[in-house]
């Protein structure tokens, strides 16, 4: 192999790795909300993908109306957090304490929301326009890379840092962590764990909304996008373990890279490349890499 071909190969490889990492950042934003809710409330919110899609649609509409990307992100987060509030207070309150009923209720909500999206926005594919200040490419080392994808990477890292600080340095975070470990004990200490639950649920939902706007800009929004992102989030959380932030980050990077390289090298088996390792891992470590027994 001559020097030029080798340099070209290295550039393609670097590009693929960056693609994998930016996808991982998006996955982390979505899956961190999922794992927070799963970890504390013990609810596997299968409507999380639908919340992501709704966040994207709302961001698209607000962005088109106001022309502001920041406003689109904020309104998507607020809207989806309110939807999470409605889901928790309006529906999940009737099935508290029974895990499987909660899971299947959220599955029903996912079907309803998906169809509602189809009614409101139709079956077309939308892409949220990239704002001007994030268009173009930046130079990273010797690599030209799209600015927006770098932005997604930065947002992913910021969300990780913010959640880490929230969980480890604040009173609310201490309550959430205590709730993950032993819910009854927290209640016995006289703390209203319900309101902690509700805040967590809204925060997790807001992250899904934020992910929807990011994903809607560098991927696309279409009626089955919710199921696809849900499956990826599930894989991330299953690999990382329930309620673990570090687990979600490692799982997201793993899935992001596997997905990118799987699609390039084994396009027909791309799904297998992602879920094969996940199924194997779960068979031997049923609680994931960082999971703790309930």
């Amino acid at each position, binding site marked *: 192999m001559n020097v030029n071909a080798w340099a070209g190969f290295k550039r393609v490889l670097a590009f693929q790795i960056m693609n994998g990492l930016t996808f991982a950042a998006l996955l982390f934003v979505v899956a961190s909300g999922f794992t927070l809710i799963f970890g504390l409330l013990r609810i596997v919110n299968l409507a999380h993908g639908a919340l992501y899609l709704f966040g994207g649609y709302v961001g698209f509409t607000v962005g088109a109306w106001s022309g502001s990307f920041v406003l689109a992100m904020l309104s998507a987060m607020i809207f989806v957090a309110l939807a999470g509030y409605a889901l928790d207070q309006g529906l999940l309150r009737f099935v508290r304490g029974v895990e499987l009923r909660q899971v299947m209720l959220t599955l029903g909500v996912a079907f309803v929301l998906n169809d509602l999206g189809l009614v409101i926005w139709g079956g077309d594919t939308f892409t949220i326009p990239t704002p001007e200040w994030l268009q173009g490419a930046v130079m990273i080392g010797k690599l030209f890379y799209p600015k927006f994808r770098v932005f997604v990477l930065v947002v992913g890292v910021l969300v990780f840092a913010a959640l880490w600080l929230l969980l480890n340095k604040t009173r609310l975070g201490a309550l959430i962590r205590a709730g993950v470990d032993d819910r009854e004990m927290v209640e016995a200490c006289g703390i209203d764990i319900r309101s902690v639950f509700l805040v967590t649920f809204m925060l997790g939902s807001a992250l899904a909304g934020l992910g929807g706007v990011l994903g809607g800009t560098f991927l696309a929004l279409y009626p089955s996008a919710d199921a696809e992102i849900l499956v990826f989030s599930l894989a991330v959380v299953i690999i990382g373990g329930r309620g673990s932030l570090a687990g979600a980050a490692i799982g997201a990077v793993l899935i992001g890279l596997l997905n990118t390289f799987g699609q390039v090298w084994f396009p027909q088996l791309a799904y297998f490349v992602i879920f094969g390792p996940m*199924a194997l891992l779960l068979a031997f470590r049923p609680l994931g890499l960082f999971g703790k027994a309930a």
Partner: protein
Amino acid sequence: MMLSRPYALAGAAFLACVPLVLPSYYVSVATQILIFSVLTMSIDVLAGFTGRTPLCFGAIFGTSAYVVLYTFSVFGWPWPLAMICGVLGASLLALLFAALAVRTSGVYFLLLTLALGLIVWGICLRWTPVTGGENGLRTELRQSLGLSARGLYACVALVVGVVTFAMWRFVRSPFGLTLRGIKEGEGRMASLGYDVPLHLTIAFTAAGFFAGIAGVLYAVFNDFVSPSTVQLAQSVSGLLMAIVGGIGTLFGGFVGAFVIIALEQAVSSVTERWPMVLGLTFIAIMIFAPEGVIGKARLLLTKSHNIDPDGVGR
């Protein structure tokens, strides 16, 4: 809880009379209901008798249909051989799933089987040279069997009768009682010396075998299979049918399949919003009648409390 023998006989007699009175469109709907009853009961074998709720049975069911249509149309094998291969394929897939999943329980079992089912869906969608991708596989299997709508109904009803009896024997056998023991108290059964993972693997494989038979019937009925047959919505609606019929009732599968398919037919003739109605039905059942329609009716009638109040068996 089992239905007593007179009810079962009356039900069988009713099903046998259906094609004599209904127009042929409804006979085909009735055939569909019977086929999905088998799928529903196979899910119930696992969910109701071992306490493990699976979300992958659409994939097992659809795999069987894929194998039948592929071996029949591409390899040109005779239909009995193709059908046997279909059931075998589904059983082997269930065995593989079981090997990976039986050590998990509760929500993790649900999630793992969901992911496994999605692998099958992904392969059916992407492995275009074999599965035909989005276009699916189409054959003339039903035509070559020379079956009219009523003839097909009769054949399906016969097979469904035999399979239902087999499942009933299976869950009533000493082995089935062991499964119930595992559902009620896994730790105790293990300390009594029962090999819990082995029992669950056998139960999962047997349930896959029954779902495979449903898949074979569906292949003949539909003459067409596509990724939508193995997708999550299929597993979900199968599970919903089982829940509506009542988890752990086995024969409730007929009621569940009837309610959901009749609802689908009724709704589809009025509006295109079937997924929304399906979702709303799911939510309503989970909130108001998690023990299923039969269980709810029985509760209201007798106020007895010997039915699993959580419905879905935990």
